[in-house]
């Protein structure tokens, strides 16, 4: 489990872990969406269209993380998946903007699925 609460001086509780792994390794294939249990952590690519999650963790190289955060993906941000056909890139709405992400990039965004 990668969540670390209050370790060190400045990690915020909701900020979990930023690993240096590349997104391809993290989730090129979507984990099969399981039956909705409340508040489970899944990767963004597992959300169905219309589902909303709260970002808990971002994975990726520095460059990708820089781009993701400047496009609105930070821990605590609400993300709603607009389009996701189970393969190929997907569209998500975050902080009012519509962002297209490759499946690998979306796999690096872990969200806590909001119960519907």
């Amino acid at each position: 489990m990668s969540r670390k609460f209050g370790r060190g001086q400045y990690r915020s509780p909701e900020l979990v872990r930023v690993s240096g792994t590349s997104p391809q390794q993290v989730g090129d294939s979507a984990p099969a969406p399981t039956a909705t249990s409340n508040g489970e952590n899944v990767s963004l690519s597992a959300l169905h269209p219309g589902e909303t999650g709260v970002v808990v963790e971002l994975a990726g190289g520095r460059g990708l993380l820089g781009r993701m955060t400047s496009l609105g993906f930070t821990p605590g941000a609400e993300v709603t998946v607009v389009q996701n056909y189970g393969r190929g890139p997907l569209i998500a709405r975050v902080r009012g903007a519509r962002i297209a992400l490759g499946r690998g990039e979306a796999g690096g965004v872990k969200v806590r699925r909001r119960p519907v």
Partner: protein
Amino acid sequence: MLVALAGQPNVGKSTVFNLLTGLDQHVGNWPGKTVERKEGTFNFNGTTYRLVDLPGTYSLTANSAEEVVAREFIIRERPDVVVALVDAAILERSLYLVAELLALPTPVIVGLNMIDVARQEGVQVNPAALEAALGVPVVAMVATRNEGVRELVEKMDQVAHGQVPYAPRPPQVRADHRQILEEIEGLIAACVAGPYPREWVALKLLEGDQEITRMVEACLPDERREALHSVLRAHDDALVAVAGGRYEWIAQAIRAAVAHPRAGQIGLTERLDRWAAHPLWGLLILAGALGLIFWLTYTVGTPLQNLLDVYVVRTLARLARAGLSGAPAWLAGLVADGMIGGVGAVLTFLPILAIFFAVMGLLEDVGYMARAAYVMDGFMHLMGLHGKSFLPLFLGFGCNVPAVLGTRVIESRRARLLTILLAPLVPCTARMAVIALLAPAFFGSAAMLVSWGLVVLSLAVLALSGVLINKTIFRGQRAAFIMELPLYHLPNWRTIGLLVWQRSLAFVKKAGTLILAVSVVVWALSVLPYGNVDTSFLARIGRWLEPLGRPMGFDWRLVVALLTSFVAKENSIATLGVLLGPGGKAGVAETLAATFPAATGLAFLVVQMLFIPCVATVAAIRQETGSWRWTLFSVGFLLLVSWAAGIGVFWLATLVRLS
């Protein structure tokens, strides 16, 4: 007075820039970067303002050349005011750049653009409340209807002259970051001088900004560098925390300023995207759009090109010959064939170039470009490319030049470079014209099939090269696919018109000289020393290179034809017309078919398809890569590929006894 115009992409920066500066603008590149730099002047209240349009960036952390350019300008040139445009419909995200700008010492005013679109999308923003929260002037505006722009300039004027109190409330460094920042500041104190604010540099180091890290490391003594490294390593997740902090600041700033009276409604963009971004319908819509581009090229571009060639270029050549009738023959030849030939090549490119710039500009302006990239991303991935590489490559079917110039839409340098390297492998209209003329003579009724096969072969080589170059030179790194899908909106014809004008002009200015020079050199080689092609230096070079062509059954004449196609692809026909003797251009194909076996003919067509692009494309490659090394690599690579493919096809054809 110096003013910088900043903003994230798609916030209407160009519209405001064009409104303020009109035609009084200068377009070039930022020094050492292939990032467009636009600058213009305007007068207000007796003051002359120099307005610099900064590249559209989401943040000021170095993810690409654009961010570096934007912040270097603000830090080093110290503009009197930075006008930051934000999109009211995406206020939260738009303000991220403002959060970064406020950390710099230059005064900022905020243009709250697109309040009409925001209202349509169910977002209401109160500018006064936002102004109070940010502590900087906020002006509501609708740039496309020229509303609020005057007020924006008035505010800018007041701030520039210090007539209004300016008390920004920038994001504060979080308490838990303060100590680390002070530690970093202490380590770098001796190093950071001049225009760079020390706290800002420390923050960028904490964010892992590569450019700043390199800058600081270059001047730190070893033991301090080690100390800095260990601090940064211990906090390597700070990037996300710092960004999160900025969004927290934004959330507080907009809490009082934004209302969602009609939350949850489905906007126009969402409805359009159900079709335009659909995996199947999206592709069909894209195919339709592409069909339209082709239709435009063939019904408007090609005829215009011919008209220009017949009425302008040839008339000019005739006039030059008449005017120089008293002068030595070589001078008339130099002017009429060498120089006007080169000018003609540039000139006849313009209609097609303008059409493609217009189409690219239109698709970008209405917001469709991002959707095209989105639906094509999966396919482009196979070649290690980005969805955004698709449209520029597709444009290559018309002409390779706009394809290369069009790669500017791709942010990642690596993906852009790969797209540029692959673009010449897309068969352009000029190559297809040569094929259309020669294929029937060799293959009769099978010519259509052969032409089709050649196109397929080109694209197969393109795909293969993409995979190969990506795997080897770029070591399989893949450009991350993450981009914004902007809201759709009506096109701004003024913006598109100016874009077409500036891009075409830039091409003529930059590439024009190189094209002219090459045209003159090739002409000179083809007449020196005795005045005819058969005994010219070019023929000698052709004979010298003949061994390379022999495995395909080429003799020196075919080699020379290929060499002259460097000026313009159609030239190989004209050259063969001269070298193969009487019969003129019309009989060339028949004479050629009678002289060479079909296998050689096929190999010639293959080489012609894959050969180095015309000089205009090479000039564009040089302009866009900013590097002779990559330009030469491209030329060398294509020479090798076309030669290998020619030999391969010749052997295959001989094997199946094609005769």
